[in-house]
């Protein structure tokens, strides 16, 4: 990948591989979401053109071990747990995010056998279905560990709506009637639309947020429901997204004096909300949303400056990886989204699923 110098490329690869090997006790807080770590690292390596299919084929069994089934009443539900610490007898610990990370990781590793022979599609879809709330159509991410009803202590924001829809899409749902076999599409869509903000974008309680915006438009796209966003609201959302690109030119530079969350060095990067610093991950959430709403988004957005921001400002040329901003150490999440944004700009990423296009194509996704 010519985006990186050979030296930086090797540093990124080493940084990513290190996260897949032995980890110190300071990583214990990732223990219940290990599949997230595995996904971020393998997705990034795959995007960097590494042959992960060969390099990690011996690890398939360990990844598949996190695929588990439970019984609620007489019904079987299946999904992934985030790691073996969650494998507790007589206890429901599946989660929607870990299920998505598990499925995507096996797609990245081209594990056809899993999808052809092992996976029980109906029971995963039943799990997704069980996570939907009757009162508003939104999704929680986990079920009560004994009763199997939606967990009362979990939140139900747009992330889980996106994840639920994406899991169903991966497992073959395409048309509305496919989705409607498992979930109440109408109430889900009305929940998503209820999170639309009057100033453009989507978010909780009226404050637009780039991450939630990406979840909302991705879910609507997968459900073929993008046209529910009215023309004027779509235009405002595109404007809102484009205005998240931080600039130090023209009248923008004057903020330097008084705005504590403004840094002229952020030029070209994206912020997640108004009057916040730019941050690596929001380049992905904003550009992905834009590319879904406006396939010709590059005619509207200066993506060369985004590349420059990522490569010159948040790429960590010492340790490898990408940082959130120039103040913190590189971390896996921002590394994944930094690399993936660069691939998205080059047209080599399936932004809806956040995996390289070549991996998605192998599964007709």
């Amino acid at each position, binding site marked *: 990948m010519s985006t990186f110098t050979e030296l930086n490329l090797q540093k990124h690869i080493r940084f990513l591989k290190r996260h897949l090997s*032995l980890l110190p006790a300071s990583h214990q807080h990732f223990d*219940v979401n290990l599949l997230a770590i595995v996904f971020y690292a393998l997705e990034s390596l795959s995007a960097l053109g590494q042959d992960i299919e060969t390099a990690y084929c011996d690890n398939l*069994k360990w990844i598949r071990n996190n695929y588990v089934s439970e019984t609620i009443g007489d019904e079987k539900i299946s999904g992934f747990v985030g790691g073996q610490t969650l494998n507790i007898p007589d206890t429901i610990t599946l989660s929607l995010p870990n299920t998505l990370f598990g499925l995507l990781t096996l797609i990245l590793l081209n594990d056809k056998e899993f999808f052809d022979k092992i996976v029980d599609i109906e029971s995963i879809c039943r799990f997704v279905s069980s996570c939907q709330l009757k009162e508003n159509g939104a999704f929680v991410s986990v079920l009560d560990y004994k009763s199997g009803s939606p967990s009362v202590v979990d939140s139900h924001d747009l992330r889980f709506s996106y994840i639920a829809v994406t899991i169903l899409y991966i497992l073959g749902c395409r048309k509305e009637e496919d989705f409607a076999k498992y979930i109440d599409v109408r109430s889900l869509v009305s929940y998503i639309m209820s999170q639309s903000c009057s100033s453009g974008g989507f978010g909780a309680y*009226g*404050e637009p947020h780039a991450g939630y915006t990406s979840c909302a438009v991705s879910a609507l796209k997968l459900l073929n429901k993008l046209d529910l966003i009215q023309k004027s609201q779509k235009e405002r959302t595109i404007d809102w997204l484009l205005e998240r690109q931080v600039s130090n030119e023209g009248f923008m530079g004057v903020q330097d004096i008084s705005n504590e969350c403004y840094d002229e060095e952020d030029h070209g990067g994206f912020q997640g909300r108004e009057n916040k610093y730019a941050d690596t991950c929001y380049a992905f959430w904003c550009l992905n949303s834009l590319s879904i709403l406006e396939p010709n988004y590059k005619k509207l957005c200066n993506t060369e400056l985004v590349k420059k921001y990522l490569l010159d400002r948040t790429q960590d040329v010492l340790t490898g990886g990408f940082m959130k901003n120039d103040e913190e150490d590189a971390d896996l999440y921002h590394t994944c989204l930094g690399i993936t944004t660069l691939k998205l700009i080059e047209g080599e990423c399936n932004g809806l699923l956040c995996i390289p296009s070549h991996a998605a194509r192998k599964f007709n996704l």
Partner: protein
Amino acid sequence: MSFQFNIKDYDDVAVVPLTHDGEEDNELCRIMYSEEYKQVMSLVRALIKENELSVRALSLTSKAIELSPAFYTVWNYRYRILEHLLQEETLLQNGHDASYLLNKELDWLDEFTLNNPKNYQIWSYRQALLTHLHLHATFTREQPIMELMIDDDSKNYHVWSYRKWCCSHFRTYGHELTFTEKYIERDVYNNSAWNHRLSVLKQCDIDFDQELQYAKGKIEYVPQNISTWTYLRGLLESQETPKVLVDELLTFTTKFLDESSYALEFFAYLNSLPEVNEPQKAIEAYTTLATKADPIRKNLWDHKIQLLQKS
């Protein structure tokens, strides 16, 4: 039984140890657990399996959550324990008082929240407590933790969202104008505070003209601030727009066209409204944005000019 975690209270538990399933060579992300982590997780897994709903189980979940804040099953388990301890017969049996238990829980949660400000579980757990278990909860009890958290990170999305939830849950909006004003005075760029103010306006009994003056004053103070202009537009859109108000805002906005890109954008928007219908003025504003005020978005502004020229 004490609420303090003491390892000796669990001597009789048949632990469910953490396993590495024998395939050590093929394991990814193998964490070198601390002894404490292994011990606590083996215990909590055992009690979750048996679904033991007891005071010692509650103490154990505090320890487990401290070591693994994202362990969603433990949060769920803790809630079920508390729910059980609050049942009348359990209260009698243990000699507990319901409000004592609930206040203790909120105190614990406050402390945990302050140490884990970015945790995703804390606010939804709190909402569940207040919705289903703590039937005498008050907005007043919630105020200090929200203020402490916002003082620490004035744009914390979770806390502002929680505040909006609280307002709606307790049906109280009376404090909100003063509350947002405090944070706007501190930092006029605080978008969350402005957004909160706009979202509660409909519930508050406000004097529209006074609110308009407030927004204008903040724009005069710092013209190049997106949050205040968004607020002004939100105010305008919250009303049946009388032409006289639009004219007043046009005059007001004109004062800032040489220094604020957001003024230019708002000016273009006003001129595109059917009641004004001055597309040429909007085009001029977009041209200034494209060439001088906000050139990074030149393509967007040119696109807007094309749309106006077409219609």
